[in-house]
């Protein structure tokens, strides 16, 4: 990228020039994409480990272990996809200068992320019903239990990080310290959380 063509202003946004290979993608965006790809490999490692353990096990679901709640988790999946939608619409509103609309949509997205975490807590430990821990799926007692908690826990940490990141960017946006550029990077991370969940849902919950 020809850095000399970039117009720098110490207090304003950077108008990044068009690059022959990467178009108008900013270094921040390319960096975020590379981070996300490397992060995806961590999830891939867990899911491959799940596949190896599962195909090498004579009995995968040990006696006394409960099945995973597919219907409930499908609901959580739709909730996460819905937050990606509100996130994308919020980003579009920010680009169009609709600050109030963008702020509400991003806050709604963060709320959806928190609801997902509540749902995951219910699934693990139980709030309005028994959780998997109480039903016999205990970390360390079987390969199935351990890979389940490690993989969904790792994803849950990403959701938590995404909520914190989103709230920080939204507050910065309200205070005029962040703009659509920062929201775009944060949106990439948030949609990535949804992206990897699709594979976690398929390989951990749905595979027969």
């Amino acid at each position, binding site marked *: 990228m020809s850095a000399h063509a970039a117009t720098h202003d110490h207090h304003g*946004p*950077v108008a*990044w020039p068009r690059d022959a*290979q*990467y*178009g*108008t*993608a*900013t270094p921040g*965006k*390319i960096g975020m*994409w590379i981070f*996300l*790809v490397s992060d*995806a*490999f961590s999830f*891939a*490692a867990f*899911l*491959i480990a799940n*596949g*190896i353990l599962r*195909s*090498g*096990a*004579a009995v995968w679901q040990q006696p006394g272990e409960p099945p995973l709640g*597919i*219907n409930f988790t*499908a609901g959580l*999946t*739709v909730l996460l*996809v*819905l937050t*990606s*939608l509100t*996130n*994308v*619409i919020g*980003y*579009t509103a920010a*680009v*169009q*200068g609709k600050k109030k609309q963008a702020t509400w949509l991003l806050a709604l997205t963060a709320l959806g992320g928190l609801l997902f975490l509540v749902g995951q807590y219910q699934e693990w430990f139980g709030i309005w019903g028994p959780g998997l821990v109480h039903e016999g799926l205990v970390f360390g007692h079987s390969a199935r239990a351990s890979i389940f908690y490690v993989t969904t826990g790792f994803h849950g940490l990403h959701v938590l990080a995404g909520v914190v990141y989103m709230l920080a960017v939204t507050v910065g946006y309200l205070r005029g310290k962040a*703009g*659509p*550029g*920062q929201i*775009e990077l944060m*949106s990439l991370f948030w*949609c990535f959380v*949804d*992206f990897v969940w*699709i*594979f976690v*849902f*398929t*390989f951990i919950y*749905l*595979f*027969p």
Partner: protein
Amino acid sequence: MESSPAADPSTSAPVHASLRESLLVFVVLGILVLFELGIVKMPGIARVPAMVALVALAVSKALLIGFFFMHLRSETRALKLTVLAPFLFPAVYALVLVGDAAWRMLR
């Protein structure tokens, strides 16, 4: 909210998604989740075809999110390749390693 070019120069690409398009993608993703539930809950579907169908549905959903919600479709070919090409490696590792474990189990 219809699409319009980015007004802020700190955003790297124009806004490409319209509200209608984003809603359509959301609806399609929801329908694909229902398909997945149908495959899992419908009796009589053999294990291997079910697994192939579930993987195909997962990849379809991931591509929809990547291309539309993450705006990958409006990026250059070089950026698309930078992002998508590395995913071939874990796919190959999965086939080889999981296949090996399954083969040793059956042996």
